[in-house]
């Protein structure tokens, strides 16, 4: 499962639409399994997509929306009932989409994406409009899909959502790739910092700066130290005869790293 991150207007939706053959890239090519979307012989069975705020005809029922798609893609009708069940929309399926909540529309869009039981799922902001239960439900569903061997590309601006589900991370900014790594690598690359507590912070700070560290105050009684590992910090303190009360690594959160990369200009990788 790959998370697709970028600030608003970075081009996430545009990238996805180009990949799906809805937009023609002004340069380069967008390929799915080595072919352009228009050349796929069974498009819905290859790639299923739920685009941001997928639109529906307000006067058409959820079931009929799926039926029309299923007919176009030669997918047997019983599959429509299956996906309705899967997204827990069975009871509302007869109602016209105009009366659906945003969360229900998201589910219907997801049902459409799953209709062809595709190998690849492309989901643009699928968590938008979902309540907390819905979020958890979505998370579980995405994990299931990935565990079943499907490739999932999911964009979101809710970073914590991405952090919980993604294995890989693609970050873009202003239409350019900023980073493409595993989630773990991405958050770690920010450089680990150490939280240090000691009785007397003043001399310790001076000593650490002398040893080449960047030191920040973290509240009343702690320091955040970057540029030195735990062993060097401990040795430096010992050399000055300062007793350490705490020495612990602090992992950068995805959000920290994301904002850092966005501030960086050209960014990392």
């Amino acid at each position, binding site marked *: 499962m790959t998370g697709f991150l970028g600030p608003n207007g970075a081009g996430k939706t545009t990238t996805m639409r180009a990949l799906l053959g809805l937009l023609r890239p002004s340069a380069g090519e967008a390929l799915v399994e080595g072919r352009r979307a228009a050349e796929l012989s069974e498009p819905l069975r290859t790639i299923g997509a739920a685009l941001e705020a997928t639109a529906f005809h307000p006067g058409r029922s959820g079931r009929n929306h799926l039926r029309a798609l299923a*007919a176009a893609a030669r997918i047997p009708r019983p599959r429509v009932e299956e996906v309705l069940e899967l997204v827990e929309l069975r009871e509302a399926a007869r109602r016209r989409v105009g009366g659906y909540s945003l969360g229900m529309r998201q589910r219907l869009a997801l049902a459409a994406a799953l209709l062809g039981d595709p190998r690849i799922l492309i989901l643009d902001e699928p968590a938008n409009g979902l309540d907390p239960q819905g979020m958890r439900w979505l998370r579980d569903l995405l994990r299931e899909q990935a565990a079943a061997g499907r490739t999932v590309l999911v964009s979101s601006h809710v970073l914590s959502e991405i952090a919980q589900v993604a294995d890989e991370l693609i970050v873009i900014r202003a239409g350019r790739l900023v980073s493409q790594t595993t989630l773990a690598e991405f958050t770690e690359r920010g450089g680990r910092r150490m939280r240090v507590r000691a009785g007397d912070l003043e001399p310790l700070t001076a000593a650490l700066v002398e040893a080449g560290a960047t030191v920040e105050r973290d509240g009343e009684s702690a320091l955040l130290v970057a540029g030195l590992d735990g062993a060097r910090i401990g040795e430096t303190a010992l050399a000055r005869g300062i007793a350490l009360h705490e020495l612990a690594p602090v992992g950068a959160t995805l959000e920290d790293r994301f904002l850092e990369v966005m501030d960086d200009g050209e960014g990392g990788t």
Partner: protein
Amino acid sequence: MNLLASEWIKLFSTRTTWTMLGVGLLGEALFAGLFVGLASLAEIGEISEVATGVGLLLVLALVLGVLTATTEFRHGTSSSTFLASPRRWPVLVAKLGTSFAVGLLAGLAFVAVNGGLALPLFESRGGAMPPAGELVDVYAGVVVSLGLICAFGCAVGAIVRNQVGAIIAAIAFFFVLSPLPELLPGSVGDFFPAQAIGALHGRVEGDGTLTQLGGGLVLTAWTAALFAIGTALICRRDVTE
């Protein structure tokens, strides 16, 4: 076939389609009751006027045809549609086929109401009935004209994707602009849709000499040309909704 089935589901799963067809047929019934039932025989004129009292249904069929193309862009369902079938021209061919078929259906419904209501009323008032063969020709022309005008609307909708704009453009062109060439001397008017509909209905106006078959061909040619333009545009344009 699968795309036709898909379009058929789309068309008949909203109330709009049913409403428009219903209103069209109701208008037809009213026409029979009020005009054929109350006007003097001299005012009614020829039987072909009775058998082709189809004006409202023509407009509605044209609009319905426009909708088959524009609704997807208006409500943004075009993305889903083109995901299910990324090659776009077959989708448009299916839309054209569907609109033609719906137009024919509307035509058949018209014939049923006309033959069951307007004609008997006309006859009971002492109107002169034409030979059966002539009546069949007129009815066939009406059915085909409704199919073609609906397909024509679809072609206009493929070019002008804005729904309101497309409806206005289709109606303005068909009912306001295209009758104008009839006023010119010679048979220029024969090559425009309005005159073609007249010919299909067995009426020849102005200097025109268009036959029924000729009328059908003219309307088909217009539809095909506009449809080709619309399809080329949609295949090139980005789908952003």
